[in-house]
């Protein structure tokens, strides 16, 4: 990756900080409004869900089913079984790695 990304790293970090700061500066009542809270919660859920499925299925501008989808399903099983975060991540890695060893995606 080239140095261009640095600007985005720093820029995104600055925005993250300013967002935190905004909470201290804007009138609390505005952020407490139910509609605002609802939107924020929903946006977080929608973004995370999209990140999951896009990272599982997207490849170079197209959709592709491969070992990543298997990793997703394995992770869901691990979560249902109440595995801690690190275990879930390792399950995802192991699933993808093992499948690839067998030449499957």
């Amino acid at each position, binding site marked *: 990756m080239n140095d261009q990304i640095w600007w985005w790293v720093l820029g995104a*970090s600055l925005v993250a900080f300013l967002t935190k700061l905004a909470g*201290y500066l804007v009138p609390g009542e505005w952020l407490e409004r139910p509609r605002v809270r609802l939107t924020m919660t929903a*946006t*977080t859920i929608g973004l995370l869900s*999209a990140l999951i499925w896009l990272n599982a299925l997207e490849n170079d501008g197209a959709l592709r089913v491969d*070992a*990543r989808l298997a990793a997703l399903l394995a992770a869901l099983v691990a979560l249902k079984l109440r595995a801690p*975060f690190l275990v879930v*991540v390792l399950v995802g890695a192991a699933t993808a790695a093992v499948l690839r060893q067998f030449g499957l995606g």
Partner: protein
Amino acid sequence: MSVAIATGLYGISFGALSLSAGLGLWQTQALSALMFTGGSQFAFIGTVAAGGAEAFAAASLLGVRNAVYGAEIKALFQPRGAAVPLHAHFTIDESVATAFAQQVSADQRRGFWTAGLGVFALWNLFTLLGALAGSRMGDPAAWGLDGAAVAAFCGLLWPRLNSRNAWLIAGIAAAVSVLSVPWVAPGVPILLAALVAAAVSQVLGPSGPPESRQPDDGSGA
């Protein structure tokens, strides 16, 4: 301190996955030290393949709830002057949750700073360890690191799926983003997801008892 330790372990995942996403050691460390909010950091590295602007947008969108945290901590501690930006930087899921778990005011402050500083130190340390491991790993695909990234996002979302509406929004956002991939530029699907999620939530309205805070189970997002 157990909150800090549990959260620090996420750092290893982040560090390694950041490297496999193509970022360098310093960029990875910068995210953990300067951005310092797990969900946004994972969103950044999860999107950066589509471009820097897309990563910027995804990370920024995922960070908006920290503004709500800021308002809550402001109501609690009322920091003044230079203390404000200092509090702001350490305003994350864990420090806020720890502060609100305490009854007495002095304990709340101690809780906020113990969790905030503790998580910061361990998060950055483990990011470094993960990044060093990631940089030595060779082919990320062979190690299944992309599968690990998908699993990590599942782990971050899971605690939030606490209502039927949450599942609905997650499902609709996923469908919209995935189906749009062949039709739009890279990075757009994720923004569509955010838009659709926000829109759908207005239609659905709140579901059940008001959600006070993200669950404190060390999800670190």
